[in-house]
């Protein structure tokens, strides 16, 4: 291309003169508009040279050229990564005035202090996104088997302290203070017969005012009283002490369809909430507690 362009260059005498200005054109034409060949001032040329010198100086002073496995580091030793690391260190330092207060304050104190509350909500949201969102969802809306943290139905309790305990020690986690709840596999372990399980399902459906076989539900109520009420309570409203869910409020951890309820009673399922003590700092856990508590269900 370069050669063909060169061939098109005309000798100076072939250039036409612009009749208005008396200046010759470069021969370049765009839609009838021709470029005048006005000379640039000399200082302009020097500015171009200065930028070339600058770029060479820049290559020497700053990281510039890639090599096979690395790059030229430059004399000034500038590194954007180090700059970011320094900025992050500075950010942590500037947060310390809040973090120190959070470390020494009780949860209720943090909740009542607008400044600490705002800081904790922001920090908690960030920590939630990093650590909790994979299971509970980015909006803490939960999925099948992972509780929704926005609602007011808590398996292990929704007060500040209860949320903190769940966060720190986990559920069925590898922590000495972790909590367990054991929903038996009623059919699989042959505690109940298939018909009894069906009866309990009908009874649970009746508790929720949903379509059910009333005869079956009556049988189910007896089975429920004998096998389930110990944990879920005689009124089936659950017990936070045992981590037994409320079965009457239309909120289901493993699904509220008839088949899903049947499956849960027959085969049981157990999720694990990791223990975060030791993995996250106490301050971060406190911020997470405040954040989760603020999602709307906090008690």
């Amino acid at each position: 291309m370069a050669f063909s362009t060169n061939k098109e260059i005309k000798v100076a005498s072939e250039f036409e003169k612009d009749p208005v200005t008396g200046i010759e054109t470069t021969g370049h034409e765009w839609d009838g508009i021709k470029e005048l060949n006005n000379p640039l001032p000399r200082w302009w040329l020097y500015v171009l040279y200065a930028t070339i010198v600058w770029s060479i100086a820049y290559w020497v002073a700053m990281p510039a050229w890639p090599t096979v496995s690395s790059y030229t580091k430059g004399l000034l030793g500038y590194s954007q990564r180090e700059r970011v690391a320094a900025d992050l260190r500075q950010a942590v330092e500037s947060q310390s005035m809040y973090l120190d207060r959070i470390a020494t304050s009780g949860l209720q104190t943090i909740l009542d202090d607008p400044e600490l509350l705002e800081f904790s909500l922001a920090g908690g949201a960030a920590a939630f996104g990093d650590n909790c969102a994979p299971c509970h969802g980015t909006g803490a809306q939960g999925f099948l088997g992972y509780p929704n943290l926005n609602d007011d139905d808590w398996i292990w309790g929704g007060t500040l302290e209860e949320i903190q305990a769940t966060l720190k020690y986990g559920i069925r986690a590898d922590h000495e203070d972790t909590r367990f709840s054991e929903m038996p596999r009623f059919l699989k372990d042959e505690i109940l017969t298939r018909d009894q399980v069906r009866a309990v399902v009908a009874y649970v459906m009746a508790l929720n005012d949903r379509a059910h076989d009333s005869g079956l539900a009556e049988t189910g109520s007896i089975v429920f009283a004998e096998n389930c009420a110990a944990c879920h309570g005689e009124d089936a409203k659950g017990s936070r002490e045992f981590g037994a869910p409320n079965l009457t409020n239309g909120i289901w951890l493993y699904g509220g369809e008839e088949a899903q309820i049947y499956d849960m009673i027959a085969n049981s399922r157990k999720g694990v909430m990791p223990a975060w003590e030791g993995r996250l700092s106490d301050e971060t856990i406190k911020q997470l507690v405040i954040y989760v508590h603020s999602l709307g269900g906090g008690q």
Partner: protein
Amino acid sequence: MSIHWAAVSSRTYSGPLGVILETPQSDPEMGSVGAAVVESIDVEPVNAKKRRTLYAKRIKVHPKRTKGAFRSTKWAVMAVTLGVYYISPWIRWDRGAFAPDQAILIDFPARRFYFFYIEIWPQEIYYVTGLLILAAFVLFLITSLVGRVWCGFTCPQTVWTDLFVTVERWIEGDRNARMRLDKAPMSLSKFHKRAIKHLTWMLISLATGGAWVFYFADAPLLFQQIWQFQAPSSAYLFIALFSSTTYLLGGFAREQVCTYMCPWPRIQGALFDEDSLLVSYRGYRGEPRGKHKKGESWDGRGDCVDCKQCVAVCPMGIDIRDGAQLECIHCALCVDACNQVMSKVGRPSYLIAHDTYRNLAAAAVGETAKLRLARPRIILYSALIVVVAGVMLIALITRDDLDLSVLHDRNPLFVTLSDGDIRNGYTLKLLNKQHHERRFVITVEGIQNYALSGVGLGDGTSLDVVVKPDRLRSIRVFLTVPRTYIKGADSLFHFVLIDPVDGSQSLAASTFRGPS
């Protein structure tokens, strides 16, 4: 190549620019270059060394001092513009304890722009947009009316160049003395003069760059910090940047800025028309020009005595008698110079004057053309100025000092509570633009049987929220409605923010989502 030079010559040298610009054709370097290249251009690459001689060296312009109405106007404009620039940041304006007391302040860290009683938040940057549009239209209007008045009188490049030339004149003398000094070999007295000149320029530059940073921080405090070397490094950086550019552009680049760097002269070509009053040489009166001896008859000749005073005073180094030129900034100093000469030789003044193309063309054939001010473009620009200024004024007068914006939770869209109620979550942003703490009341319109609750704000049918002076507060609010009152998956309603003290309020629309 020779044609190239001929072209340059006709543009740069044909005007009698005085002693220093005489007879470029006699320059041996240029002559030889011209002759040599014609033969070889078709085989030379475009960047051949010989072609580089195209880059003409700047020839310094030595504007001569003049007196007259336009020169006086330029002095006055210089005094006002420089005064405004240097003094503005020091004007104080009391805004109470929670806002800075500087009348004009661009506060980047706090994201505020203060201009006397006006305070602009980042989301109100459209006021600045409006101001820029207004400035553009005013510039268009003035340019199409009376030419490049902006360039000739008020542009910072013109004002500071004028200031620098004035300093130069004080120290080195007027045009002839300066040209002699340029040619003179270096001596103690020349060195002395040059040193004082550059030192003064540098001090002016430093004051210019120094004043700039005061617009961005508390001026008295920053002034103190600068001298104690405790100001932010960015302050020193910008002082250095603006000082060096002032020194370079005012001391050296001068008219080159207007001719080669500035896009505005090119744009203005599209703004003039044949009825614009532009600084023009009235050739119909002046030609044929020629030297005139005292007592000679004026019959059969023009008024121009070819004294070249108009060229000598021109800061752009052009000859106005060549007609309209890109380089001309319409400073009208040639008008002053020519008027002095005309009164000396006893001819009517304004041989060079603000005149229209239409009139010049008409006068050439012995007629006169009427001045037409009410042209379509003038009317259009004026109307646009009125409209934009009106819109801005109304926006400014009706500007709320409180504001509410709502963001509905996207995930989850709604939450079913254990008793079957449906709850929606919202992030509310409350803006208190007053400089004192305010207590707002938030209620809901358009939904019945609702319950409001806010994180750290309690619950009920309304919420009390305290917002600090001149601050934005972001709060999380939950709206709960019994399932039986929910109509469809999506219902519209408003959050209402009220200041019970002054009764002002702000509405923000949102939706309430539920199961379909």
